[in-house]
């Protein structure tokens, strides 16, 4: 254990473990508290942070800490789900563009340009409108907007690999496409895929919060983090700073944890990027 701590790689792995457990705990706690988050107690309304209510209470006397954790739990679950869907989409389309021939390539590349040509938030508004707002709208929206850059990376990687000397050699030796992709392609693509997937989490969580904040995402009854922050705006001028500051800071912390997790995993998978 001490040996592990001395070594930076060891520390990284430990950190990844701790971070993952922490995020999972938030996720679980929010799940379990989903009823408590709606509990109102009008005798306890608009309280500043104190021991009983570390994040204070809102205008209906709801405990903001519980609401924040529940909202974040929702965001994390939604973020993980959409990031997964988006990464799978990226893999399918990115690899498809590289191997399905010229027409498929130009169609997919064009689609990528198209999606990148509209600001994310605007596209999210459009998609969420198309699906009648609510959970489905956000989920589909984030899935459809986040796959492009990973797809581009995977496409480039596959193209480069299929031009590489050892793949050409394997073809000459008469190995089939299945063998080549299993032995020469997948080991190179997989780390890229996982890195891209994990780095997508923070963006997905952030965009979920943003679109919900604007009023397109989850419905106002749900204690989503975007809803909490959107509600807090009404009480800003009354000086109830804790309603926006603390839940937002918690959201930032979760996004940063995901970000750190992604970078650590990618540094582990790709040692070239991490010297000293």
């Amino acid at each position, binding site marked *: 254990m001490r040996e592990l701590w001395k070594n930076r790689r060891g520390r990284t792995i430990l950190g990844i473990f701790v971070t993952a457990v922490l995020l999972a705990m938030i996720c679980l706690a929010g799940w379990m508290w989903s009823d408590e988050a709606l509990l109102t107690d009008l005798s306890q309304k608009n309280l500043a942070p104190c021991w009983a209510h570390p994040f204070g209470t809102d205008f209906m006397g709801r405990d903001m800490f519980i609401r924040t954790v529940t909202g974040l739990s929702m965001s994390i679950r939604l973020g993980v789900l959409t990031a997964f869907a988006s990464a799978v989409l990226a893999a399918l389309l990115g690899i498809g563009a590289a191997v399905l021939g010229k027409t498929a390539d130009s169609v997919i590349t064009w689609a990528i340009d198209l999606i990148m040509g509209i600001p994310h938030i605007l596209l999210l508004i459009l998609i969420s409108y*198309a699906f009648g707002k609510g959970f489905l709208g956000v989920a589909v929206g984030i899935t459809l907007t986040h796959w492009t850059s990973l797809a581009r990376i995977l496409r480039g990687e596959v193209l480069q690999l299929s031009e590489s000397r050892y793949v050409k050699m394997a073809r000459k030796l008469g190995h089939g496409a299945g063998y080549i992709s299993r032995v020469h392609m997948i080991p190179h693509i997989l780390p890229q895929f996982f890195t891209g997937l994990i780095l997508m989490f923070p963006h997905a969580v*952030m965009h979920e919060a943003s679109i919900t904040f604007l009023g397109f995402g989850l419905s106002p009854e749900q204690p989503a983090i975007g809803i909490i922050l959107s509600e807090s705006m009404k009480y*800003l001028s009354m000086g109830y700073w804790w309603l926006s500051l603390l839940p937002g800071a918690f959201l930032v912390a979760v996004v940063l944890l995901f970000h750190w997790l992604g970078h650590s995993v990618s540094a582990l998978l790709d040692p070239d990027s991490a010297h000293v």
Partner: protein
Amino acid sequence: MKLNIVMKKALRLVLLLLGVSAAAFFLVSISPIDPLQTNIGQAALGSMTEEQIETLRQYWGVDVPAGERFLYWLSDAVRGDFGTSLLYRRPVMEVIGEKAGYSLGLMTFAWIISGVVGFLLGVISGACKERLPDRFITGGALFLSGTPAFWIALVFLTVFAVELGWFPVGLAVPMGVPADQVTLWDKLYHACLPALTLSVTGISNIALHTREKMVQVMESDYVLFARARGEDPRSVVLRHGLRNVILPAMTLQLGSISEILGGSVLVEQVFSYPGLGQAAVTAGLGGDVPLLLGITILSAILVFAGNLAADLLYSVVDPRMKKGGEPR
């Protein structure tokens, strides 16, 4: 630049805009949201006569098939007529023109400030790799990149407007003042905090990228050789560093118009700033399809223009491209 390249770019823009409008139109047409219910309300609809409702249905275009509506819209749009905003009851172009007046100033300011500040921070950070300034700047930039724009806006609003009272709490002009009595100073004063917020949200991207590029340059053979020739660190950064990172930085900043646009939607919402972003949100929430389409098309054009400018910049400024050499 050769003519056929210009033609190619123009064709790409046309195709892109066609794609964007078709995709946007498709998305709004499959929406289950009934604009009548959203904007007039169930109760009000119930008290209306059949004929009144029929007029409204026609006004909101509820019964015309989507494909047909798209063709109508498109044939008008190519002539510069983007229809009438259903919520503002004025031509879309007029609404966009008014809103853009507020937004473009905000975005231009934020674009320049975030570009310049981010670039300088990135250069300093990259030149001091792994030392204290680098750790501070990289840490700060990473923190910012993980912070949603709207929360930064909320924090700034709380701190600078509510608690310290340095800036107004929202809106583009003072409340209750007739439009003809609003001074330029009033407008600038109200734009200050939103512009500042938007600048801050744009810094991290360019700072981090410039740092990466700067680190690459500082580890390059030619910087090694410059040091071997006796150039001191200051001269290395100023003579070789800046020269080699400014082009990629400008390209990146031109390519990040999409992010600034997205950020402005959130920031305007927090500050109740009546710009394009807020109009897009209102249009989306209220089912104002023509306005939403108009704003989408406009932002697609802006993003395309940014990317085009980045391309042109390379071919005009980079000697390797200018003299027909291979780009790196």
